[in-house]
């Protein structure tokens, strides 16, 4: 649109690529410009805003559930509503928040970080976003009729038409289809962009770790999504067209669904959390003022986690009728994942070690992530030991574990990303005071809500129950958890206020407020439509550091000189 030149300076004889514009479309203004845009940054912003709205919706559903459970034998919600709420909550958070918000960050920052001017397929990119909107509308449309009440896993035979005849399950199936297509198209787009459009000099060994994470996220989506798409289609035909894939009374198998679902469902966990890992790996070195420790190990562990993540799905099914050999295979596979995950955590801590840590909000969220995710990782090892899992599975211990991994893990990563990248997206800084308040409320609220849920599970409370009798300390535990959930919600609200306030009143950020390492900070904030007028040649994992050093060298004497780069032997301590 901006390229309107027709005259070409012909001082060279070599053929120069020319852009000939015969007609200049006037730039659209107002809301139609958002609907018709194919700019990866605008699509990214729409992703981030839409998914955050779904996050608020899913969070509200969670608060309603916590209110119901705050008292033993509570009658605030009836069982039907309660089942609808946890189904909506889980489905929203997974399919409409965590997975697509990572696509939102990816959309905005992958092209910027690799020095590209847009995604490989801008129109497909817009399609991805609008398919997500359609999925969300279809799913939330069911609120006006009958929302699904089978949990986000929708196990048959409960989800068969015989037991849940109303349209809620169908709305859920169409949500999986639409958001799945959205993610699949987006994943192919990410893959093509990262594989083909990197800046000159950016080999695989110089790819930012967030981009590594999005690459692996895309590959996992491409491998896992077709399986769930097939499975929900089979469920749909079971429900309406007389097939019996999952119906045991006609030779079908409910266990088949569990295998298909978790073959997708477990990689889905890594689809949600790997981009979070990527954000942490970008933000930590910036505020520790130190290069990431063990770049290759972190990139390799991302790939290894994804590979192993495809081989452990049946650890969700340890209580099903399965031979001991199968249980052992999936236990040991799950153990193996702990190794690359541990390596990542050690590398992050080592990145802080001997750095000069600046306690910005983004860094706090990273640290909160590491500390919290560690607990989720450790409880994951308990659950991987299948005899122990027999006691823990389907209880609040699992609810605690999955929230430590996904909320403490992925969501804290998302918040670190929001605080880190907001200045790039809007050109303005967010308030550090409100940011830190939000962080502490969220961290404390989170631990109060979910730590005690381990004890609820050990005390015999299964998940997905709308009421419980006050035996043991269950009522006390639940009350603590409910109080924590409202502290957590207050923390989220503070960040929402911070975002809205900083849009107008935040201090102007400038192109590189954090003195960061990656290429998105090379351009203005917010970046122009074409991202970069000049794409620099990439010489290391930290191109911005190289550029700052070069500028300092060229303007030596003016201002403070950076410390001389240490010789290579000293660097590799």
């Amino acid at each position, binding site marked *: 649109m901006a390229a309107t030149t027709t005259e070409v300076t012909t001082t060279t004889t070599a053929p120069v690529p020319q852009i000939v514009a015969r007609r200049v479309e006037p730039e659209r203004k107002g809301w139609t410009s958002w609907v018709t845009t194919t700019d990866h940054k605008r699509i990214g912003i729409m992703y981030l805003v839409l998914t955050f709205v779904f996050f608020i919706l899913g969070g509200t559903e969670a608060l309603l559930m916590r209110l119901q459970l705050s008292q033993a034998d509570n009658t605030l919600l009836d069982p039907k509503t309660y089942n609808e709420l946890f189904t909506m909550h889980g489905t929203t958070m997974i399919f409409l928040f965590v997975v697509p918000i990572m696509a939102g960050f990816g959309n905005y920052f992958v092209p910027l970080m690799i020095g590209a001017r847009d995604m490989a397929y801008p129109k497909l990119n817009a399609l991805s976003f609008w398919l997500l909107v359609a999925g969300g509308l279809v799913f939330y449309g069911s609120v006006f009729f009958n929302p699904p009440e089978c949990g986000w896993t929708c196990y048959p035979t409960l989800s068969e038409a015989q037991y849940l005849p109303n349209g809620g399950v169908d709305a859920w199936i169409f949500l999986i289809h639409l958001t799945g297509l959205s993610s699949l198209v987006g994943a192919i787009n990410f893959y093509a962009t990262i594989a083909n459009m990197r800046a000159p000099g950016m080999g695989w060994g110089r790819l930012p770790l967030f981009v590594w994470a999005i690459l692996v996220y895309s590959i996992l989506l491409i491998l896992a999504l077709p399986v769930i798409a097939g499975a929900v289609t089979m469920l749909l035909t079971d429900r309406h067209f007389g097939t019996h894939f999952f119906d045991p009374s006609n030779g079908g198998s409910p266990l088949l669904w569990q295998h298909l679902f978790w073959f997708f469902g477990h990689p889905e966990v890594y689809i949600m959390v790997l981009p979070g890992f990527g954000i942490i790996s970008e933000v930590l070195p910036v505020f520790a003022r130190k290069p990431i420790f063990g770049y290759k190990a972190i990139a390799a562990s991302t790939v290894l986690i994804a590979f192993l993540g495809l081989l452990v799905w049946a650890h969700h099914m340890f209580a099903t009728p399965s031979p001991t050999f199968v249980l052992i295979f999936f236990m040991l596979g799950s153990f193996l994942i702990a190794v690359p995950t541990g390596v990542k955590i050690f590398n992050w801590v080592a990145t802080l*070690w*001997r750095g000069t840590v600046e306690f910005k909000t983004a860094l706090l969220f990273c640290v909160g992530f590491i500390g919290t995710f560690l607990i989720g990782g450790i409880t994951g090892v308990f659950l991987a030991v299948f005899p122990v899992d027999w*006691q823990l599975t389907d209880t609040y211990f699992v609810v605690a574990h999955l929230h430590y991994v996904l909320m403490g893990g992925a969501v804290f990563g998302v918040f670190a990303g929001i605080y880190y990248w907001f200045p790039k997206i809007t050109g303005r800084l967010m308030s550090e005071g409100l940011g830190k308040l939000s962080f502490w409320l969220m961290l404390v609220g989170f631990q109060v809500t979910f730590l005690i849920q381990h004890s609820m599970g050990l*005390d015999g409370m*299964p998940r997905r129950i709308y009421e419980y009798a006050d035996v043991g300390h269950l009522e006390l535990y639940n009350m603590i958890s409910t109080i924590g959930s409202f502290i957590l919600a207050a923390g989220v609200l503070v960040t929402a206020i911070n975002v809205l306030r900083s849009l107008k009143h935040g201090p102007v950020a400038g192109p590189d407020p954090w003195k960061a390492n990656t290429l998105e900070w090379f351009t203005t904030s917010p970046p122009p439509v074409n991202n970069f007028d000049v794409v620099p040649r990439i010489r290391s994992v930290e191109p911005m550091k190289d550029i700052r050093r070069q500028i300092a060298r060229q303007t030596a004497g003016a201002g403070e000189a950076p410390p001389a780069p240490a010789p290579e032997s000293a660097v590799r301590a």
Partner: protein
Amino acid sequence: MNRIGRALARTQATSLARRLALAVLVALAALLAFAGSAFAGAIVPESGGSPNADHIATLYKLILVVAVVIFIGVEGCLIYSLFKFRARKGAVAAQIRGNTRLEVGWTVGAALILVVLAVFTFALLPSIRNPPNSGPAGLQLATGTLVASGPPKKLPPNGKSLNICVNGQQYIWRFTYAADCSNAPLNSPFSYQQMVVPVDTTVTLDINAQDVAHSWWIPKLGGKFDAIPGYTNHTWFKIPAKYAGTIFTGQCAELCGRNHANMTAQVRAVTPAEYERWLDQRKQDIKAADDAAAKERSQLQQQQTP
């Protein structure tokens, strides 16, 4: 000067680390001593009703010790490095990009910890998975009656167990007292919601469901076993003799519909003699009810054919 300072820091760090390690070990020992009673249901799973539940709790505690050490170590390093290396005037960040030896070291270390956990699991697995023989105070099972048979179900070494068929249905559990669940005689004694079993007797369960998936779970008697329509799942328990008269409670652990929360189960442990009395009573009650129904049916038939 610089070297001396570093050496000093190192000795301080090691003595601190040693003291910390000692404190951790003491805390863990205290924790384990209490874990059996005070913390059951708070930081360890419930146990006490059956050897498999006890062994699961033991395995859990072993993992917990390893977990607490790792937790304190990593969180400690994290918090220490945050405070020790916070930005100060004049501080310069060391530009370290990695350390191959260290990285290989902690990768191997993490793997070794998991090997240890796997060894724990394999050591305890047989006592959790495989049912033992019934004890001397248990029900005397004559060969041929109430004896479960056939692989792939795990049976006690002497092949004798009291078999009970567990059937999950929205939203109640049905228990049929029969040796062969797929061909249980029509007049087999049964009960709903409360299962009655003799103490010191190895009870094997054949678990299935007739409508949607459920999950059998009495925490003190061992782990969960899903009841899935079209499949039969197996587990066992053996309640110590001292628990005669105790009722163990649990509830369905797999979402089975709106009243999933209300699908509770009880296991009442009684002496073998009492069990046999109860079973005879059930048989008589069922026979009486059947006879009454048959009588009524024939009366109705007579009324319809004048």
